[in-house]
């Protein structure tokens, strides 16, 4: 239970400000008003929420907790231990931590997340959104649609398309680059899945940053521009302090998605020789393909813990950065004021 209640406790500032601001808003208007004006009593309110809570509890939270228990068993899909799983304590967990295959999968997952999500999608998404700010409306809409296509198609479809694209014999990439017979997914598996994931996921960051950049007051930018700030100075001193929370929210979301992303399996199958086997793929091949349920569950739980660590890390950043961003904002405002004065005189 601690597993699920922990992020909930640490959450209030989690996904951006809105949670927190809504809490404040609710608290502000709470005592002042009759809490039952619209006629939804406590009993009915619970009744409204209960079905959703039960369903989520039974089908999302309970299985995750059950994984903890399964990880303590010697349990296979086939063979002797399939009939009577035996309790072996923490052995699966200690095995996993000293298993080079697990460590390698974890390392590859970090590479995959770092390069494709935190760096790739983040920066590409931001740059596209930055360009969209000044682009004509028609251009913006068209590019939006093009980039969104990659994001919205089913994983099995895009995996097939990339296989066709990268194919050794008839692949378009080999034709375009005049490189005959290069087996891209085989020779550079990690590079392929990283670029693939940037391509697939950039749309989300782009849309989120486009919305975030709308919140930057144009007057601030104008003032900075008149004061002679170069584009990158405007970016650093005016834009980034304003959209800081959005950057963190976006990074948290894409990190978690990429961490748990199973699509690389469709592209490379985790191979060759486990060279692109990220954690979800490793779990899938251990538990489902090789039928080692106990061990697979133990790794699943470690993956879950990794997720929590990431979430808590970002939440700390969001929370701890509050006065930091405030200072940055004040600094930006001071700069803007100074610039205004300079322009005025």
């Amino acid at each position: 239970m601690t597993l699920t209640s922990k992020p909930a406790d640490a959450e209030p500032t989690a996904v951006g400000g809105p949670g927190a601001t809504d809490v404040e808003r609710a608290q502000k208007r709470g005592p002042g008003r009759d809490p039952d004006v619209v006629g939804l009593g406590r009993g009915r309110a619970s009744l409204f929420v209960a079905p959703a809570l039960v369903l989520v509890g039974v089908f999302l939270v309970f299985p995750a907790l059950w994984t903890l228990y399964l990880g303590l068993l010697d349990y296979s899909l086939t063979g002797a231990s399939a009939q009577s799983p035996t309790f072996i304590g923490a052995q699966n967990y200690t095995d996993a931590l000293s298993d080079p295959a697990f460590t390698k999968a974890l390392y590859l997952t970090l590479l995959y997340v770092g390069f494709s999500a935190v760096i790739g999608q983040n920066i590409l998404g931001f740059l596209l959104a930055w360009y969209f700010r000044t682009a004509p409306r028609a251009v913006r809409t068209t590019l939006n649609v093009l980039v969104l296509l990659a994001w919205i198609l089913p994983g099995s479809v895009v995996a097939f398309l990339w296989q066709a694209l990268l194919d050794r014999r008839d692949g378009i990439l080999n034709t375009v680059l005049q490189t005959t017979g290069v087996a891209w997914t085989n020779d550079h598996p990690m590079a392929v899945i990283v670029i693939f994931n940037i391509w697939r996921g950039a749309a989300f960051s782009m849309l989120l940053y486009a919305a975030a950049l709308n919140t930057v007051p144009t007057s601030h930018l104008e003032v900075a521009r008149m004061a002679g700030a170069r584009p990158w100075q405007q970016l650093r001193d005016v834009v980034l302090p304003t959209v800081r929370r959005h950057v963190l929210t976006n990074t948290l979301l894409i990190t978690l998605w990429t961490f748990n992303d199973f699509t690389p399996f469709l592209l490379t199958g985790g191979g060759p020789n486990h060279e692109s086997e990220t954690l979800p793929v490793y779990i899938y091949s251990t538990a489902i393909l090789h039928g080692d349920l106990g061990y697979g569950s133990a790794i699943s739980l470690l993956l879950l813990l990794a997720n929590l660590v990431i979430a808590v890390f970002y939440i700390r950043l969001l929370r701890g950065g509050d006065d930091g961003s405030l200072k940055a904002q004040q600094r930006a405002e001071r700069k803007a004021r100074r610039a205004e004065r300079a322009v005025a005189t």
Partner: protein
Amino acid sequence: MTAAVATRPTTHAEKEPRKSHANVYFGVIAWIIGIIFVVPVLFMILTSFHSEADASTNPPSVGAPLTLDGYREFFSGGIDPWPYLANSLTASVLSTIIVLALAIPAAYACSIRPVRKWTDVMFFFLSTKMLPPVAGLLPIYLIAQRINMLDNIFLLVILYTSMNLPIAVWMMRSFLAEIPPAILEAASIDGAGLLYQMRRIIVPISMPGIAATSLICFIFSWNELLFARVLTGVSAQTGPVFLTSFVTSQGLFLAKVCAAATIVSLPVLIAGFAAQDKLVQGLSLGAVK
């Protein structure tokens, strides 16, 4: 300070052309990126309308005559794809309907008239999104095996419902929070009951939000692959899972496979572009509007 006055007009004048130059370069790069993004999709759609002979040439014959043979082959060439597409449709539509039926009341209770502890409830929903799906997969597989629910489309319906519920509750809450409470207060003073308010005020006002939420749930359910792959076999296989096995067995017939991929993509493409502008608000769980 006089220096500032003196330099301002010149810097301003210099700035304009440089800015537009940078913008042109930026624009060209953005377009190149956009084209790179769309090439695989164009390839898919174009090839699906080519004959097998034209599809297999290298370099691809872009200007080849168009034909519907690929689609004809896909729908009536041996394996009937309709059951799989129907499975996907059942899982996506049914789960989306159940999600809405459960999420709207829950979001209502958490937004319009917040009762005590409602933030705890919301954060409980949010925290479940931090659980990796693959972590719950094995227990669900074992339980489904025990109670004979493997290869049953209704198992997927229930799972997709619970997977999408947290997102839907957060989305609906952010849409419902936009309804001014004064309207509801006025209605209740006029004697409108809860059901009447729901039907005549809340649902009509938040209709765009409801539409966006259902489209997103539909897309997620339709695209889900991991659970569908592991928990279904023959009779409950969904479209995307069917496509992966179809690619393996029919990979040589590029036009036919591209037709299959286009058909499997069609529902989410339609849903995606319908939901486009509300997508971010929903997916960032209301953090961004």
